[in-house]
């Protein structure tokens, strides 16, 4: 008994002494992997890429950069997301970081975490010739540009040309035409739509929701809805769900067990005919079928609504606390240069599009060229549900929409619950 008393007292003393020491040292928490970037004059680029090809591409691009020495750190996505505020807010932050454009970047800018890069968007700046839609996307609430977009991709209804030929069908441009196409395909024993909402990836169900909202209520309403200025149980959203319900008989039920990439397989095999997804899907298509993949625009429901498309944009921002402002901007300019963008897209074998209009796209696949033209024709660009709001609001959509897929008859109840969940996120 006595022994345990001693050890307890010893522990308490030790704990108190150490507690003090740790508390004093605690101020330097965060930015663990960024330490050492400040005083040596070296720049740090904190990146989150997990697939080998894009990772290699960025490494090569940085290796070619001769102006400064750049330390390139790769961090797993979940950790990167969780640590991002700490990275940006630490006293010695990584100078340049990869992330997404839109609400997420704007949110950090409103906290004063991001470097103002407005000068890169005017005169002879690296981003000066980028499209106005991209500029708008990279602008914060105070009208400053805080983001440097370097690549983006488009969403569309992907299909196999040879299969459409075999079934004797054509892409549809109107909603009624699209539903008719679905009925025809179903009549031929083909599942019209693939959609991988399973395996922990329910966010895929937001693809159709986003698009139907864009087509029925327009991009402005959609953004306001996600920002909490409209309600999820409003008549406008009910109209969206009504249209979504019309699609349900045509969606492959097995998609509920597949993730976003696995759901490409039934399309490639010709079991499913179409798939509304991002251009990243081409990475999951075997080489011999790659040239057979084509896409078309999500059909128009209301001709009076300006056509908007989802074009999730990736790029870089810099920390407001960076000790190397000039050098960071130089690195950002380099990353956004036509040569670097071209190298990145070609080496990473993605179907991403360059943000710089000066990139020579003639060597890109016809599909990517079609994608570029497709987005240039659109009046407005949105990002995707989570990027236009937050990852937390995305989970409210996941719950509501996957429940809706199982119980479309309970739509009103589901929308009421969605609104309640969303309010908890908006007003926390």
């Amino acid at each position, binding site marked *: 008994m006595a022994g345990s008393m001693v050890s307890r007292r*010893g522990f308490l003393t030790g704990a108190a002494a*150490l*507690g003090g020491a740790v508390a004093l040292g605690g101020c330097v928490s965060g930015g663990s992997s960024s330490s050492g970037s400040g005083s040596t004059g070296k720049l740090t680029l904190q990146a989150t890429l997990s697939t080998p090809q894009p990772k290699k591409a960025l490494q090569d691009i940085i290796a070619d950069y001769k102006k400064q020495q750049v330390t390139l750190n790769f961090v797993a996505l979940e950790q990167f997301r*969780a*640590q991002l505020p700490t990275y940006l807010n630490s006293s010695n932050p990584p100078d340049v970081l990869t992330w997404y454009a839109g609400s997420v970047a704007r949110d950090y800018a409103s906290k004063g975490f991001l470097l103002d890069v407005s000068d890169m968007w005017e005169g002879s700046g690296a981003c000066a010739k980028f499209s106005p839609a991209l500029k708008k996307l990279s602008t914060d609430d105070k009208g400053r540009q805080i983001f440097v977009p370097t690549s983006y991709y488009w969403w569309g209804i992907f299909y196999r040309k040879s299969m459409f030929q075999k079934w004797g069908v054509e892409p549809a441009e109107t909603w009624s035409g699209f539903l008719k196409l679905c009925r025809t395909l179903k009549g031929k024993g083909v599942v019209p739509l693939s959609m991988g909402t*399973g*395996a922990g990836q329910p966010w895929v169900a937001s693809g159709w929701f986003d698009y139907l909202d864009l087509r029925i209520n327009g991009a402005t309403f959609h953004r306001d809805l996600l920002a909490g200025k409209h309600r999820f149980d409003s008549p406008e959203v009910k109209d969206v769900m009504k249209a979504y319900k019309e699609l349900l008989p045509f969606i492959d039920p097995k998609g509920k*067990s597949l993730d976003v990439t696995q759901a490409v397989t039934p399309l490639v095999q010709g079991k499913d005919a179409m798939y509304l997804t991002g251009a990243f899907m081409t990475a999951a298509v075997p080489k011999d079928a790659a040239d057979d993949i084509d896409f078309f625009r999500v059909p128009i429901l209301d001709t009076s609504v300006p056509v908007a498309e989802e074009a999730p944009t990736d790029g870089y921002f810099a920390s407001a606390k960076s000790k190397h402002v000039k050098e960071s901007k130089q690195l950002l300019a380099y990353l956004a240069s036509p040569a670097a963008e071209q190298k990145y897209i070609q080496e990473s074998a993605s179907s991403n599009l360059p943000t710089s209009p000066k990139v020579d796209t003639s060597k890109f696949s016809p599909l990517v060229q079609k994608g570029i033209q497709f987005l240039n024709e659109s009046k407005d660009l949105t990002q995707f549900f989570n990027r236009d709001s937050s990852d*937390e609001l995305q989970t409210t959509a*996941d719950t509501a929409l996957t429940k809706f897929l199982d119980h479309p008859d309970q739509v009103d109840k589901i929308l009421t619950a969605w609104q309640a969940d969303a309010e908890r996120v908006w007003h926390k």
Partner: protein
Amino acid sequence: MAVPVVVEAVWVFWPAVNSLWLSLTKWNGAGPPQFVGFRNYTSMASDPVFRQALVNNVIWLVGFGGLSVIGGLALAVALNRPRRLVGLYRSAIYLPMVFSLAVTGLFWRVLYQPDGVVDSVVGGVGLGAFAKQWLADPDTALWAVLVAAVWRQVGYLMVLYLAGLKGCDPTLDDAAAIDGASAWQRFRYVTMPQLRGVNTVVFAVTVIDSLRTFDIVWTMTGGGPYHSTELLSTYMFEQGFTFLNLGYGSALAVVIFLLALGFIITYLVRAARQEVI
């Protein structure tokens, strides 16, 4: 003595105390945490996902604990006697334990796929009508994950019980047999009391393992469909690291800690009292 205490204090107690403090704050990882008192705990009461996760955790604790203990003990008793190929059986049953839970999850996800192995087996025994999307159906998803977790755990508990059975005195069993005790009576009244020490270990291991279950659920369902497989641990991770509600996440961690502590203290107190008698 001093060194381990210091190490323990820095790496275990200090973070634990810190997380207790964080659970009383609102913090997104940036700037100073903002003290909010017990608001994180009161908002749990009105959080339907938390309630669902709590219920699921109870189901998990009972289901996972119960099935793996019964399975492990039964296998240990069956494989305790020397017979042909017994080593092979033991190794085969222990084998899943060498995979990480994440790998187990990915492996079972393939088995559960539509038209996958599980569906074929169900169809093969004439129950084809029961084939379903095991992980996509909220009625079956939690149980489907549970089966995968038990499949892995059962070998581990079997090994623990085998070790316990080796320590039992065979002469007691023989004596009881001569006195006319049936096989069940001998197991219940002669063997089981001798396994008390092992039972304490198994109980602690099982409670801790079921409360910290995370990876297998995360890889198989991610907590879905619509939170039907959400456990306290997955919800804590989501709140803390995906949404950066570090205060609320810490509060959930404290709840998990208290649950584990409650179960184990109750059990240890009971076990200690029995030992005295």
